[in-house]
């Protein structure tokens, strides 16, 4: 997983966890917000991805159990591991390189500010 491009769902899950620990529904909402609704995932896709990311050591369950807003101790939070942060950085670097190549080859089609 560390060497091949990440799927959009996995990239967005890692991005959602880059800032803070989140539970499943929180990840879902953050992904929806970050992607402006273009990446939609249901519970099956989300927890399948969380399972694979946990097995590959990119994320892990957090010690935290309580959502201060919802006060629900049953919620399980996830956080990025150091390896997950490294994979996310590498993927973002790959995207930056792709954008740089795009700028060189088709500057007219690139949106200003990218």
């Amino acid at each position, binding site marked *: 997983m560390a060497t091949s491009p990440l799927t959009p769902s996995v990239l967005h899950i890692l991005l959602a966890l880059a800032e803070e620990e989140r539970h499943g529904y929180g990840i879902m909402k953050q992904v929806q917000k970050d992607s402006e609704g273009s990446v939609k995932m*249901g519970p099956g896709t989300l927890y399948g991805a969380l399972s694979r990311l946990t097995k590959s050591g990119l994320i892990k369950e957090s010690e935290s159990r309580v959502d201060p807003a919802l006060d629900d101790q049953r919620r*399980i939070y996830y956080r990025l591991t150091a390896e997950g942060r490294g994979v996310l950085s590498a993927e973002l670097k790959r995207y930056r390189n792709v954008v740089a190549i795009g700028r060189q080859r088709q500057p007219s089609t690139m949106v200003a500010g990218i």
Partner: protein
Amino acid sequence: MSGPHRLYQWLLRLYPRAFRERYGAQMVQTFADLDRERGAAGQSSFLFLTGVFAETGASIVKENIDMLSITARQLRLAAFASLALLAVPLILTFANPASRLRGEAGGEGFDWMPGSFVVMGAMLFAAALGVQWAARRLTTRTSRSVAIAAIVAIFGLAWVELAVDGVSQIVGLLAFASKVSGVIPALPLA
């Protein structure tokens, strides 16, 4: 708990057990969160349920296929273990100067026929798969122990029967003893 929630919980039972135990409760909770969000937004219940059930159904298929790939690894493990154990009689047979690979050494060390290796390999492979199945699928230590002991016993009995007709001889002896003593009811296999 509402009908759709119960139905969703039932649907989750189709996931592989390990996945369901780890993520089932979280998925039910996320389903409830999404349903609450849908209700607040005044969206169609039918469309929501259809979408979530279809998406979860697709995920169930994927997770079960993933589990089969684990089984493929276990198949390789069973094959490796069988071949490793078969190497013992193979080495002993070839190390035996009296061996002609015809089973005619007359008790002078190992002299297995090629067919014996095939049969023993199949028995070992089946036993190894059975032990792995019991270890993975059965939930309590007692049931695992009983199942593994039964597999080992069946393997041993089959081996003894194939090697020296051991089981048939024991059954014959019991039948003979029952006939002579008249205490034990006569066995049908006399």
